[in-house]
């Protein structure tokens, strides 16, 4: 057996698995998106663009996703940056790892359980109850866009901190000293040295969070209470409730296309903004 044959043999089981469980399903969704709905639900083969023409019927879901996902990403970034900075620049080596692990750990535990905790905090007995004691009445938090926003920031903050931390940690601290020796004030040093050098980390973090947010289902389902829903919630509804596979497939394909286009445009913009490349990886 030659080395090449051996490599093929090694790739065979994994490759077959990806083919059946990833490539085939995605192809099926693509094909179904041009089909029609059967009388009792499901799918009837056809070639029509009707499903795509019907997309505006679910416009609200796309609107919510495309408004709340970028806002959530931006706020996460604004919250994560100072923390990442504190960890990378102002923390002793001994504490760094511990504190960093503490940030990442929640991300790897059940998002379902972490999200439903907010039902307590934002629900009637939580913050609104506290506000009532202070004399502010009639505040409704749960099942509002605000609740969904809190949920997504909370859920994805760890993923944002990590890449920014890595880019700040790699930054040569002598550059900061040089900048201050040359008479730059701390704020000027930050704006002219630290911030530009951490752009790759910010870019990676924003992209990771944004991609995951586009496909979010759980957080709007738990904290949006059917009033604030994402494309993911529309998909669940289409496939499990109304069993409209053809239309659901068209929605899914559209979601993937929007994701791909956004990511590509975004990558272009970032690489133009910053020709300096830095590899940042997660865990």
């Amino acid at each position: 057996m030659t080395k090449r044959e051996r490599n093929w043999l090694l790739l065979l089981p994994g490759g077959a698995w990806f083919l059946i469980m990833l490539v085939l399903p995605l192809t099926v969704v693509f094909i179904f998106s041009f089909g029609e709905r059967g009388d009792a639900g499901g799918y009837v083969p056809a070639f029509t663009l009707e499903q795509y023409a019907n997309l505006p019927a679910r416009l609200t879901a796309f609107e919510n996703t495309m408004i709340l996902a970028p806002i959530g990403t931006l706020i996460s970034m604004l919250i994560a940056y100072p923390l990442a900075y504190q960890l990378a620049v102002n923390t002793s080596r001994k504490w760094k790892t511990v504190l960093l692990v503490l940030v990442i750990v929640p991300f790897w535990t059940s998002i379902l359980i972490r999200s439903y905790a907010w039902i307590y905090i934002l629900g009637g007995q939580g913050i609104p109850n506290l506000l009532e004691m202070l004399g502010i009445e009639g505040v409704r938090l749960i099942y509002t866009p605000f609740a969904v926003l809190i949920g997504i920031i909370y859920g994805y903050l760890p993923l944002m901190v990590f890449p920014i931390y890595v880019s700040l940690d790699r930054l040569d601290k002598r550059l900061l000293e040089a900048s201050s020796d040359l008479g730059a004030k701390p704020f000027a040093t930050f704006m002219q040295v630290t911030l530009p050098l951490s752009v790759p980390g910010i870019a990676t973090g924003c992209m990771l969070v944004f991609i995951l947010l586009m496909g979010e289902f759980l957080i709007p389902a738990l904290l949006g209470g059917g009033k604030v829903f994402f494309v993911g919630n529309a998909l669940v509804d289409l496939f499990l409730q109304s069993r409209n596979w053809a239309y659901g497939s068209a929605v899914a394909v559209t979601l993937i296309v929007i994701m791909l286009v956004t990511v590509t445009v975004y990558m272009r913009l970032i690489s133009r903004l910053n020709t300096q490349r830095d590899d940042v990886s997660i865990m």
Partner: protein
Amino acid sequence: MRVYAICVYLFLYMPIAIIALFSFNAGRHASQLQGFSVQWYGRALKNPFVMDALQTSLMVALVSALLASVLGTLTAIGLQGMRGPVRVIFDGIIYIAIMIPGIVIGIATLIALVTVFDQINPWLAALWPEASEAPSLSMGMGSLIAAHTMFTMALVVVIVRARLSSLERDLAEASADLYATPFGTFWQITLPLIAPAILAGFLLSFTFSFDDFIIAFFVAGSETTLPIYIFSSIRRGVTPEINAIGTMVMLASLILLIIAQLILRREHKA
């Protein structure tokens, strides 16, 4: 700045703490604390639905993590020696597997498998001697394990490849020069060196599978995993029992994660 950091940590851990706190609630109301009790833990552990769901979750997580570790490692080693289009295609597939939202993977797997099963089942019935005893394929534990293996295998490939590419190529060559067979080289040199990465990949895969709700929601058929049980219970209203289950689940994930971290850390030092 320090105060700010503390606030962010409070934000990250307060909800978890609240769930843990309310799980010790003596009263039956989910939102009013009425003394300390561990009764809900006892009830959760005696609830047959919870125990069934736990068993399913553990089974699925164990089998899919094992499959993902073995197949992912084989794929990573195979890719190491590959150049050209095959490698590009695999890189693309792994990228897609990780990037495509879980919800799309769940839906796509559901409709693809249901469609394929609908085609295969009549054939099985026709080919089987006793048509009424013919096996019929349906969504269930098998499809769930297959779907989780697909996604976690992509994770294992990424982790093991990172380790493989940092290995000294010289070691394997030296071993070959000393007349070790390729299999001997793999068994005695490569495998021990990548073992920590495989183990870390296994633990992450297990955690992912155990915590996954969205893929399971679509492909589990009539099976109920623990996250599916928790989700449908929350829909009916949060109870102290769910808080007790949640606390235990998070504690278990936490322990697995710390082990995975320690293994990866030791690997960095080695």
